[in-house]
């Protein structure tokens, strides 16, 4: 008995030590001879596979010279990054969430790359995709994204409704938009929202879905004349009449016109809701196109409606940066260039719909180059206008809040519950106004403590 116990204990201790040894530290061993770069990134399965493919290509082309190791972070990227930096173990090159870019830049974690760029490079890049700190370029958007309306063309065809427009000049007015959504909102008996027998409690397909996301709602707000920040950029502007009107409109879409689901109702949606007819239109970004391409429905792209100030889009990308702690910035830039080149191993990613190049010249403007990545099933013809055309209109691009609201997490603590409340309950105009004023007051009172508007050297944009 004694011997058995002793043996068991020895074995377990040995295993424990082995386990510890195997696990200590997350960084893989350096190859010794040539430099190894770590690249941290996020993304769903498709992106992970595509990125790993790029890395493999790059490594194959640079055998013996440099090796890139990809670290895919499944979730909580910000947390991972923060704690890695706190532990003094930065990657060489990584995605940086827009919300953390300025924090990291101001703390000196990112490398200014102006000296690594080939001459004239910056002129070819979409203006919105260049991330500067203190006047120096410290990051580029991983890919351009342009939020727009995705719709299921089959549903529109089935109900004999015309498709939403994809050209900026044809953007729908608010009333036209509501009417369109109503005609594709259908209850279980087949009646659309304009029908007298429409049953608002038994809706089969909603016309539209945006979800309780501030970024999406901002598209409506900006078109309505609202702005995220007030005129002197010291505070948010949520109690402005334009914001209140926008939120009231959202509330009406859900509770009066019933063309949008409440957040609770959207919990019950099946996977691939756009394909499965949970809703006919939604606001989406680039990252979904790759998934859509593999599904069995006809995708259409449309511009956002025009509430008075033109249709808007937003580009909420991830940013890619090289880190100051990297020992091989030139090699990291090489890998970066490789990744950005549409024709160089990353074609599936761009053509497949996941990424949109950040260099408008030549990838948007030259027809031949454009065809390389858009002339396929993943890209409907309408995409060219709804996305690319919008990307070239800087005045119609909503600046990404996360890019200047440095403490976006704390900011969301106040804003998200208000959005949930407004979207979850039928409300009168005054109630919506009251809610928005309360939110604004809370932000005003607590901004100093959280440091939400401590811009450091960030240039907030309006």
């Amino acid at each position, binding site marked *: *008995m*004694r011997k058995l*116990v002793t043996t068991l*204990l020895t074995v*377990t*201790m040995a*295993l*424990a030590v*082995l*386990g*510890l040894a*195997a*696990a*200590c*530290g*997350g960084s893989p061993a350096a190859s010794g001879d040539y430099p190894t770069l770590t690249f941290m990134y996020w*993304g*769903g*399965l498709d992106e992970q596979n595509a990125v790993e493919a790029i890395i493999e290509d790059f490594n194959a082309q640079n055998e013996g010279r440099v090796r890139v190791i990809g*670290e*895919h*972070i*499944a*979730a*909580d990227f910000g*947390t*991972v990054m923060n*704690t*890695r930096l*706190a*532990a*003094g173990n930065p990657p060489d090159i990584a995605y940086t969430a827009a919300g953390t870019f300025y924090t990291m830049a101001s703390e000196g974690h990112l490398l200014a790359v102006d000296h690594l760029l080939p001459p004239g490079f910056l002129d070819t890049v979409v203006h919105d995709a260049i991330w500067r700190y203190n006047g120096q370029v410290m990051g580029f958007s991983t890919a351009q994204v342009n939020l727009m309306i995705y719709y299921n063309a089959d549903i529109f065809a089935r109900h004999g409704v015309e498709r939403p427009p994809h050209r900026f000049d044809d953007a729908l007015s608010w009333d036209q938009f509501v009417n369109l959504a109503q005609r594709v909102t259908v209850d279980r008996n087949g009646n659309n929202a304009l029908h007298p027998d429409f049953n608002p409690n038994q809706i089969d397909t909603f016309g539209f879905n945006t979800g309780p996301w501030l970024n999406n709602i901002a598209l409506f707000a900006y078109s309505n004349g609202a702005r995220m920040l007030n005129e002197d950029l010291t505070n948010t502007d949520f109690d402005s009449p334009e914001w209140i009107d926008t939120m009231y409109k959202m509330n009406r879409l859900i509770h009066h016109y019933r063309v949008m689901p409440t957040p609770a109702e959207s919990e019950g*949606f*099946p*996977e691939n809701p756009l394909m*499965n007819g949970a809703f006919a239109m939604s606001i989406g970004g680039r990252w979904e196109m790759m998934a859509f391409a593999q599904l069995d429905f006809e995708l259409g792209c449309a511009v956002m409606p025009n509430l008075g100030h033109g249709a808007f889009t937003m580009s909420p990308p991830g940013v890619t940066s090289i880190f100051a702690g990297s020992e091989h910035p030139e090699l990291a830039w090489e890998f970066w260039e490789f990744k950005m080149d549409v024709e160089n191993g990353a074609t599936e990613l761009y053509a497949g719909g996941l990424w949109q190049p950040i260099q408008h010249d030549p990838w948007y403007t030259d027809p031949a180059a454009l065809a390389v990545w858009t002339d396929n099933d993943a890209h409907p013809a309408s995409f060219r206008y709804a996305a690319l055309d919008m990307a070239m209109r800087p005045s119609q691009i909503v600046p990404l809040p996360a890019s200047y609201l440095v403490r976006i997490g704390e900011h969301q603590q106040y804003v998200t519950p208000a959005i949930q409340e407004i979207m979850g309950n039928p409300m009168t105009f005054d109630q919506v106004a009251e809610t928005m004023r309360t939110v604004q007051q809370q932000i005003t009172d607590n901004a100093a403590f959280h440091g939400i508007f401590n811009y450091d050297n960030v240039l907030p944009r309006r």
Partner: protein
Amino acid sequence: MTMSRTTARRVKLTICYTLVAILSFLFFVPFFWMVRSALMDTAQLFRYPIQIFPNPIVWENIPNALQSQPFALFFRNTFILVIANVAGVVITSSMAGYAFSRLAWRGKKLLFYALLSTMMIPGFITLIPTFLIWTNLGAHNTWIPLIVPSWLGGTAFSVFLSRQFFLTIPRELDEAALIDGASQWKIFWVILMPLLRPVLAVLAIFTFMGTWNDLINPLIYLTDQRLFTLSLALARFRGPFATQWDFLMAASAIVTLPMVVVFFVFQRYFIEGITLTGIKA
């Protein structure tokens, strides 16, 4: 009207059986639902009205779910942590229990009560500084914060349990051995430990369970997916599994299964463990 005693008894038993049957059904249904959802594809899952039984049974869900994330790795990781923790707790808790029960040394009582009182402290108080300390020591994203505490006495619960149990063992054994010239260490290892098997088994089982189900510690310390435990991997499936309920249920079932098996094999130790705490103390 008075019923005869036996009729009254029969009525009572019938009521009881009915209640028990309803109860068991209600407690069992979620398990059934988990397995049933795990074996359906999403088309069946979202059918309205709800389809109760999977038809056809989609066995592929299980391998598909397990392969979409490196589950074999997560199993291995969790298993390693479990073994390391069980060994640590079993050894150091019993050592501490021995010291607190058998040996006389200054500060024993004070320290014991101090140790017990830690059970009342909210986890957050120690969690945050412990996290900072480990991070500053560079142990972030390793398994060190998940293993070392077990080797330093385990938990107050395990020390307490061990000490209570030691108190039930007669001292004559120690004394006889002392007279024979045995050292404390020998007394502990050779004579007493074998007698401790029941409580060691309990400690082992509860530590196994605690480690297997632990979420908060892996959550804050581990960021590299290669080190993830099963609980953490499941919690972080916000990517591909966000709305994929069939995969999510399949993965949940797989994470649950070993616990259920362990329970059935070691049933009596679960009950023993809780009763050994001596709640009335």
